Structures are given as structure tokens and as C-alpha cells.
């Protein structure tokens, strides 16, 4: 039996399914994902949100877990919500910026 492991691109594509509903943009293009570590079938994600006051923080973090656990090759997900460094529009992708009308201050 061949044991498959996820790669970073697969994980990023899965995370594009998770949106910030207020901003109508996925968390990857928003630049909320700080780092992805893959160890076998375990994925650790360090991420932030646009503001620590975001009332969706728990649900978005849960959404990250759900999206990754949907992948056959992922059995364990660790989500770390971090606030340092704080989010800035500079972290957004070009697509996210044009979609949101957000510019770098």
C-alpha cells in the first residue's frame, strides 16, 4: 500500500476554500497564512486574522481544520492563531488585493 503525503501546494489549495465572509476573500489570498509545516500526515498551520477583534476567529480556525482534514493524506491538523507579526495588506496576493480594493499603507 502506498502512503501518500500532502505537499504545501495541496495544503494551500485546500485552504483557499476557507473564506473571510466579511471581506469575501479566501484566507490564502488575504495573506493570513504565515507558515505551513508538514510532517507525514500531520499539518501545522500558523495563521493570523486581519484583526484580533475578528468575531469569526474560532470558526475560521475550525474551517482550516475541516478543509485540511478533508484531504485523504491528512490525519492531524494543528492550527496556531498568532498576532505577532500583525497582519498587513503587504501579505496579500495580487489577486486578493485587486479583489478587495485593499492597498498597502
Amino acid at each position, binding site marked *: 500500500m502506498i502512503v*501518500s*503525503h*500532502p*505537499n504545501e501546494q*495541496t495544503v494551500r*489549495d*485546500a485552504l483557499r*476554500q*476557507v*473564506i473571510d*465572509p*466579511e*471581506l*469575501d476573500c479566501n484566507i490564502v489570498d488575504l495573506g493570513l497564512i504565515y507558515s505551513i509545516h508538514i510532517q507525514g500526515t500531520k499539518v501545522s498551520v500558523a495563521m493570523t486574522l*486581519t*484583526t484580533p*477583534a*475578528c*468575531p*469569526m*476567529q*474560532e*470558526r*475560521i*480556525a*475550525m*474551517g*482550516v*481544520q*475541516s*478543509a*485540511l482534514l*478533508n*484531504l*485523504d*493524506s491528512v490525519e492531524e491538523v494543528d*492550527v*496556531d*492563531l498568532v498576532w505577532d507579526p500583525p497582519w*498587513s*495588506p503587504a501579505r496579500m496576493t495580487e489577486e486578493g488585493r485587486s479583489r*478587495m*480594493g*485593499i*492597498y*498597502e*499603507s
Partner: protein
Amino acid sequence: MIQSDRNAKRSIAVTLSFVAAGTVSLLTGMCWLIVRPDILATYHYNQHVIAVTHLFTLGWICSAVMGSIYQLVPVALETNLHSERLARAHFLLHLIGFTGMVWMFRAWNIKGVGYFGFILATGVLVFAYNIGRTLTSILRWNVVAVGIASALGWLVLAILAGLLVAAAKLWPISSFDPIRQMHAHAHLGGLGFLMILIVAVSYKLIPMFGLSELQNQSRAWTSLALLNVGMAGLFVTILFGSALKLLFAIVVISGLGLFGCELIAILRVRKRRIMDWGMKYFLTAIALLAPLCVLAIVLSSPGVTLNDFTGRLENVYGLIALLGVVTLAILGMLYKIVPFLVWYSRYSPDIGRMKVPALVDLYSVRLQTIGYWLFLGGLVLTSLATLFGHAACAQKGAALWFASIIVFAANMVKISHHLFKPGTESLPMNAALKGVS
């Protein structure tokens, strides 16, 4: 690490019930103005004027604001509501209290007003206790928390003053001029509770929605201090008919000026450049403070006597304050709060598992835009009609308002519809993502 799911514990039923009661009250009030446009076109305190004013202030404004506070305060201050059971009890007391009061005012049964007023006041005390206990659980008091707490204090005083005004009509317990008592009571509610609350929550919500930050803490604190000091001074000087009323009006206007400066500073550095219509409604409400402040200066100037013209100016002042500034601010915030609540309840458990809509997909932006222009048209028309005492024009303005609120209600129904018929889709890309490398 993921925190405990604070929001999941919060029910949306209480807030939606308050908003529904408020919207029905607003529509009823607009119908009332269409049927009796003389309420706006003449300066005369009769039972219709008092009844419809309380329908707007208690039925619409307080319902929408109190319902929103049950959601906003825990979000803005990152804590939990003290008791949802008390919030439900408050809704019942509020509903019985304000409908009975409006009915009794309409029938000019002051004893009845007192009975229902007592029920309403009990509800307000329950509300103040519940939010007060919620505030005690926060770790760090900031300008938002202090602003909300002081607004609550003014609300309790406004309700007590209202009961005293009603009692003074039955028994000789007050030697103050009845008109001054009413004006003092109205300012406790409109300025003390509503305006200070709008200022306080703006310092949290405008940065949150615009992806910005409070720019100057001391400016925000000073604005709040000036508003509170000005309110206290205005209450006393209005009640005693003192010439110092102008001085305290200027103190309040200075506080509002600092608030405006801080908002501009927050918006200048916002990272989210696109402004949605919810924000446009809210910021238009804030801009309407400028003509309101001019009227406040004119009406509080020493030597201004009550005559037909100044009486109509007072009506315009009240109209712009309650149906301009406060109503537009509430409509704007409800376009942010209600979609969020429905989305949170219906779609947030599916995030990452299903394709879920964004908040903006829950309502019609086209209707929202139409509603905005209808409302502004109604405001301009009714303000001019009130100023010049033109009943037919007031009726047309009220009809525009009614149309605007119908559009708003249609959007609220559209949003609520998602609770019963969700628009989720399974994720088509999952299959392609499975098992890689």
C-alpha cells in the same frame, strides 16, 4: 491555539426579535406620518406627536439598538454576555412596555402610560444590569467600554426622567416647566444614551470594518469626556432654562468635532479602500451631525423664544436627530450585524467543508442602494416640509421613507431566509485535492 468557541454560545434569536420589532415599529411610524402629516407640519405637542415620537424612539430606535448591543458588546469587548435568559425577559418587558406606552399616549391616558412605562423601565433596568455585569467581566477598560457604560447610565436616567415627566402630569410633584422637562428628558435619551453609544461603538467598529486602528487615544477619550460633561450641563441648564445652555451645547459640539476628526483619521489610514453601503449609511449619519449642530447652536442661543418658527426649527432638530442621524446609523450597522448573525448561525459550521456565501451574498446591494437614496430623499423632503409647515410635502417625504424601510425590510427578510434555506454547495475541488505526492 484555537480559543474556545465563544460566539457559538450566543443565540441570535434575541437580537433578531428586537430588530424585527424595531422594523415593524419603524414601518408603523412611517404609516402614521403618511396618515397624519400634520404631526410634522405643525408645532404642537398633541397625543399623536408624543405617541409617534415614542414609537420611533422606544419601538424602533431602542429595540434596534438594544438588540444590537446584545451582540455588539460581547464582540467589541471580547467577552461573553452575562445572561441570555435576562435578555429574553427584557425583550418581553420591552415589547409590552413600548406598545402599551404608545397606545396609552395615543389615547392620552397618562396613568396607563405610567403603568406601561414602569414595565418598560423594569426591562431597561434588566438590560442595564445584564450589560453592566457583562462589562464587569472585561479585563481592560478602554474608551469603548467606558463610553458604553456611560451611555447605559444616561439611558437609565432618561427612563426615570420620562416616568417623572408622566407623574408630573398627574400629581403636582414638579415645579419645572413641562416643555423644559420634556426637552431635558429627550436629550438624556437622544444625546446621553444614543449619541454617546454611537461614538463609543464607532471607535471599535469603524476600525474593524475599515481594517484600520484608533489613531489618537487621548482625542477619543477627550471627545467622550466632553460629551458626558456637556450632557450633564445641558440637562441642568435645559431644565432651569438657563442661558448657559449654549455653553454646554458648545461643549457637546466640541466633543462631536473631536469624534469627527478621529473618524477621519481612522478612515484615512484604512486598509480596506472599498466602502460598502453599510458604511456609507453610517458615515452619512455622522455627516448629518453638522446641520444638527448648527440647529443646536441656534436653538440654544440666549434670547430665542418659543414661537411658530422656532417651534418648527425644534421639530426639524428632532427629526434630523432621530430619523436622520440615529436611524441612518442604525440601518447602516444592521446591514453589518444581521448578515453576520445569520451567516454565523447558518454557515460558519460549514466553513472549510462546503462552499459558503460571503456576507454580501446574503442580501441585495441593489436594494440597499435604492433604500439609501429613498431615505435621503425622504429626509430632505420631510425636513423642508417641517421647516415650512407644508403638510402635503411632509406626506410625500414620509411616503419616500416608508418605501425605503420596505426595501430595508425586504433585504432583512432575504437575509433571514438563509436560516431556513441555506445556499451552501459542496466543494467541487475536494476530489482533485485528495492524496497527493
